[in-house]
């Protein structure tokens, strides 16, 4: 069972602000989903190697050749608040 405090902790890790109603609902829904997921807790998996990726590839390399980047202006055009050739953000410290 996921408690309200855990929901708030995870939301903080994920940088998500949830309303009180969302916290309530999320606690119930996550508990329901994890109850189902917990079926895999019963499987014997001690000797099993984990799979993180299905294609047997490692260290795919390419030649280290310089090439042009995206034009800076075009990239900044997509940003909510470009300023002086950079991405402007609110101050990390509260006033």
């Amino acid at each position: 069972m996921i408690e309200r405090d855990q929901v708030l902790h995870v939301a903080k890790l994920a940088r998500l602000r949830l309303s009180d109603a969302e916290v309530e609902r999320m606690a119930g829904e996550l508990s329901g989903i994890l109850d189902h997921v917990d079926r895999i807790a019963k499987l014997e998996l001690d000797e099993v190697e984990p799979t993180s990726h299905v294609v047997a590839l490692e260290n795919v390399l390419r030649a280290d050749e310089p090439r042009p980047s995206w034009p800076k202006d075009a990239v900044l055009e997509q940003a909510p608040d470009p300023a002086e050739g950079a991405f402007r953000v609110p101050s990390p410290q509260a006033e």
Partner: protein
Amino acid sequence: MGELLELSVAQAVARIEAGEVSRGEYFAAWRQAAAGDELNAYLWRAEEGGEGEGALGGIPVAVKDLFCTDGVETTAGSRILEGHRPLYTATAVRKLAEAGASVLGKTNMDEFAMGSSNENSAYGPVLNPWDRERVPGGSSGGSAAVVGGRLAPCAIGTDTGGSIRQPAALCGIVGLKPTYGAISRYGMIAFASSLDQCGPLTRDVTDAALLLAAMQGRDPCDSTSVGIEGGVEAPRREDLAGLRFAVPAELAHDAIEPGVREVFEATLKRIEELGGEIAEAPLPHAEHGISAYYVIAPAEASSNLARYDGVRYGIRKGEAGDLIEMYETTRAEGFGEEVKRRIMLGTYALSSGYYEAYYGRAQKVRTKIAEDYAAAFARFDFVVTPTSPSVAFRLGEKTDDPLAMYMNDFFTVPMSLAGIPAISIPAGLATPNGGGPELPVGFQIAAPAFAEQRLLDAAYALERAIGFEARPGDGAGG
């Protein structure tokens, strides 16, 4: 005009090449059909196109809004990317263009491809062309609806746990999820990177092969792409003699609708009539696919979606506060319910103290599922199941029960975890539980990694034997 829309992609290419159909006329016919979209399937439509030459010369393609298209708004169905115009085009779309195709429109989808009903789009749900009170499936719901509803000759989508195959089944069309690595993921907005794969949604198997042939291949921009050795050719096989089809012994899944089961069993008989052999094979871990998938996919998503922070692209909210407040407000207002749920689930599964119990174990279950398939493919050529446990369900029917929604993916998730290719072809019609007009049922065939040609050949033979010709009674495009 109407008869141009009846042509399959392969037929249209041939007619255009022979000079019997003009490119301009063909494109105009589809542009007009797309303009009549009453299914909320398109988010953007092209004004011009159809000029290209090649294997897909003159063919308009509907593209899921998950694929970046240079200068054309690409939102992935999310409010957080509203107004976003990418600087580049996804490799899959670029390769289609190089083969002569052009983008007809961008299609609606579940936000960031998270969903099985298309009800999670920030831009409203897509309606099923067979019954507008029902869902088209998801997450490539728009791409499936435009092909099923004759609003596009063909489409592409992405499949992470069934997002091409399930909507294809629910809309009565063909949907192929290729082997992981067959097509480049470059320019596909990431959901779960170890599972996401692009593929075609088409009217028939031949068209699926045509699109796959154009899109597959290694791409230096996606180091996990390897392509299909020897390429892909038009399928030709006429029988299934000597081929062995496995039905998972654990298929006694009590949630399969009786109508779906009937069509599935009738299709098994057709396989035997075509000379194929059918036998049960154990796939004991497939039933744990949902558990493993709904840990692994959200875990990867929680990491991939960290980039949406209101700094570099998309929307920004809560600017009056400090940086953290801006992040949290942007994400709270930019993401929909299901995306938040998956970010929470994934963050929880990766958080300190739970990582081994959830993420670690899920990755081991993934290994067991892949081993089950490897064992089955040592004795069989294919594994077959229904694509979806039910026909298209009603809008709103499952939105209050996330787990019930996730169970739609019961038959499609295991192949995604194993990275193997699978195709859904329309196999017949069935009455939904609770009654109502008959709706399409999909039949799913899975093959070993990179055995796409064999898979398409078998699907083609079966498609011909089934002869599915039903279409939405209430024509969506008029």
